[in-house]
């Protein structure tokens, strides 16, 4: 079975007023790097949160490896949210122990290697690290898992170009090749070269799900150019 994620008739309405996702249907297969693209407020983060069990859908369902979001799916999904979720008083070493305890697919030696390559001391407390370093530590922990699905919410937003390169390199060199990376971003030109597939979402609706190759062949455009055309204001 190559289907990893199935989203069926997914609707999310906030406070009975604001519809973030409207009857969304899509299937995500294994072994790909997929860009989840859309303008601000299009529903990307809402979809990601539902996939991770952080939000409950109003209607419809999502299945990951055939399971609804829960302990079974969370054991195989590695999630990088758009914010840092550490307890500030913890040391980096304690975070490695934490991930080792809770995730069977976590590879502490890989995390230590990456931390060392960035000269991050394992005995440093999170509160002593800069915002950028915290984000890198979080990315390292997330990418040190051998998960089936990596969900990365805006991993390159708000970082300098050098850090952006490091993040992209970390993603492509560390993800399990049988797994899928679902990556949301606005900065399409920076990641376009690593994407196999894209999903365009607009106002909670699926606009397009296509391979990058098809966009280039059929539309004769880069993903970035096509995105600008589809979402032109």
């Amino acid at each position, binding site marked *: 079975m190559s289907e990893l994620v199935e989203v069926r008739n997914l609707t999310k309405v906030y406070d009975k007023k604001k519809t973030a996702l409207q009857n969304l249907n899509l299937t995500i297969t294994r072994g790909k790097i997929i860009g989840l693209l859309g303008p601000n407020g299009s529903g990307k983060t809402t979809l990601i*949160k539902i996939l991770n*069990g*952080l939000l*409950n859908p109003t209607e419809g369902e999502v299945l990951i490896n055939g399971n609804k979001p829960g302990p079974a799916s*969370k054991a195989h999904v590695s*999630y990088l949210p758009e914010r*840092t*979720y550490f307890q500030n008083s913890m040391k980096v070493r304690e975070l490695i122990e934490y991930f080792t305890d*809770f995730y069977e697919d976590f590879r502490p030696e890989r995390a230590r290697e990456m931390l060392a390559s960035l000269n991050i001391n394992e005995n440093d407390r999170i509160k002593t690290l800069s915002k950028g370093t915290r984000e890198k530590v979080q990315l390292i922990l997330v990418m040190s898992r051998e998960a089936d699905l990596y969900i990365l919410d805006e991993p390159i937003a708000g970082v300098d170009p050098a850090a952006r390169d490091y993040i992209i390199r970390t993603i492509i060199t560390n993800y399990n090749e049988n797994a899928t990376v679902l990556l949301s971003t606005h900065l399409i030109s920076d990641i376009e070269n690593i994407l196999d597939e894209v999903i365009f979402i607009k106002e909670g609706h699926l606009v397009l799900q296509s391979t990058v190759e098809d966009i280039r062949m059929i539309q004769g455009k880069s993903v970035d150019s096509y995105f600008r055309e589809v979402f032109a204001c």
Partner: protein
Amino acid sequence: MLGKLIKHEWKAIWKIPAILIGALLVIAVLAGLTFISPVWRSGMGGLDVLTVLVWILFYLSIIGVSMGNLLYLAIRFYQSMFTDEGYLTHTLPATSHQLLISKIMVMTVWIFLSMVGIFCSILIFGGMAILFLQPEISIWNMWEDICREFEAIGMLGLNLVSFAASIIFMLIASTVNGTMMITGSICMGQMVNKHKILGSIGAYFAINTVVQIVGMVVMLPNMLKTRFEAPIGVFQMLASIYWGMGVLCVLVSVGLYFLSEYFVRRHLNLD
């Protein structure tokens, strides 16, 4: 999984409550030392002011430990479940039951340890007062006096074991209830769209008021019946009140647990 969750929850929160309890015990010793030279026997100017200040500090420390630890545990629960930290908590491969039980167990232990710490500090303070003010009284003599008192009470028909069991049951039940009041109200507060903290505080007072009213309605007839129809003594009446309060605490705690679990499982909406 539950064991790992408890281990990490313990590691995350043990320092502050332990420091507060440790500080209280030190202050209790300092306050007790003031009895070496009590103010009413001292002619030294300024010593009386210092003594009173240490006693006030001791009093404030007791309040600090009971309220401070409760507040700290509430804040930690809120942060780990419903703020940015919640993004990690709720993506662990654990059920909502496991998450809640681990937090409730660790919180309950710390609330209990706070009570034990306060009790010990009062014991230290009182013990040192007796030691320095009435050195002729030995601890052994005091223990014998207490035993004699209990024997006398026992002869009046009171079952001491049953009475002690009622107190222990009530203490355990009310400690768990204290934890559940915190977790329940914080979980209910998340249903408010904005001002979730205010919602939690409001929920806490609302639950507390309802429990007090229900407690009075349930307990009052029992107390009156005991008092007027079967005058069996104050200890029997107290025992029946303690059992009743304990049962009420258990019922409220169970109700709040399932309510909290329901909110976490079905209405988790992290911003």
